[in-house]
């Protein structure tokens, strides 16, 4: 099992550009999450999904969109990138049958200049 995979690993965007961060999991988890990590701030939840076709906002959703068309994939879309979106983005998956444990991907480091 590959676990949770994320692409790309690094990306530099210009202000106003858009991009999609990809996330996939092969553990058949129902729950998937997107977090952002800023220095000294821990991880903050952007969006989450409890299953295909169901998504909901987390603590910091502004400037982002998500979709969940399959159990395996949970892409995060950035529209009109802003410097405030410079961060490391982590995707995670979990399943209530596993006690709520979440498994994280390796992250995408995004810089907006």
């Amino acid at each position, binding site marked *: 099992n590959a676990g949770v995979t994320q692409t790309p690993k690094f990306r530099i965007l210009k202000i106003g550009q858009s991009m999609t961060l990809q996330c996939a999991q092969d553990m058949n988890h129902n729950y998937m999450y997107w977090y952002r990590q800023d220095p*000294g701030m821990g991880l903050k939840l952007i969006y989450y999904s409890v299953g295909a076709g169901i998504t909901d906002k987390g603590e910091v959703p502004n400037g982002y969109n998500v979709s969940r068309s399959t159990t395996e994939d949970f892409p995060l879309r950035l529209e009109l990138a802003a410097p405030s979106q410079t961060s490391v983005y982590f995707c995670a998956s979990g399943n209530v049958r596993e006690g709520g*444990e979440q498994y994280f991907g390796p992250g995408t480091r995004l810089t907006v200049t």
Partner: protein
Amino acid sequence: QQQVKQSPQSLIVQKGGISIINCAYENTAFDYFPWYQQFPGKGPALLIAIRPDVSEKKEGRFTISFNKSAKQFSLHIMDSQPGDSATYFCAAHSGGGADGLTFGKGTHLIIQP
């Protein structure tokens, strides 16, 4: 509003010593308290977790102590080793984790040889 407060922000411990990291929470609905370990350039990895029906959980050199009445929990690393040098995050969620984890801000731990 920070629902999980973590301290200290950084910690230096001599090899063989005990590392102690503390967290306090506000939301009494939280029912799952994991600790994550993160190495530079990697995603967080689940280290150990506890539920509020027990006061202590031990896995190898890692122990979680949990005080429900005080709404506090802590991570103890016994016989700390240089390989334990990493950033540690406490977290919490409720209801099986469908709506994501709430993280502390992290503790940067350095074990000096």
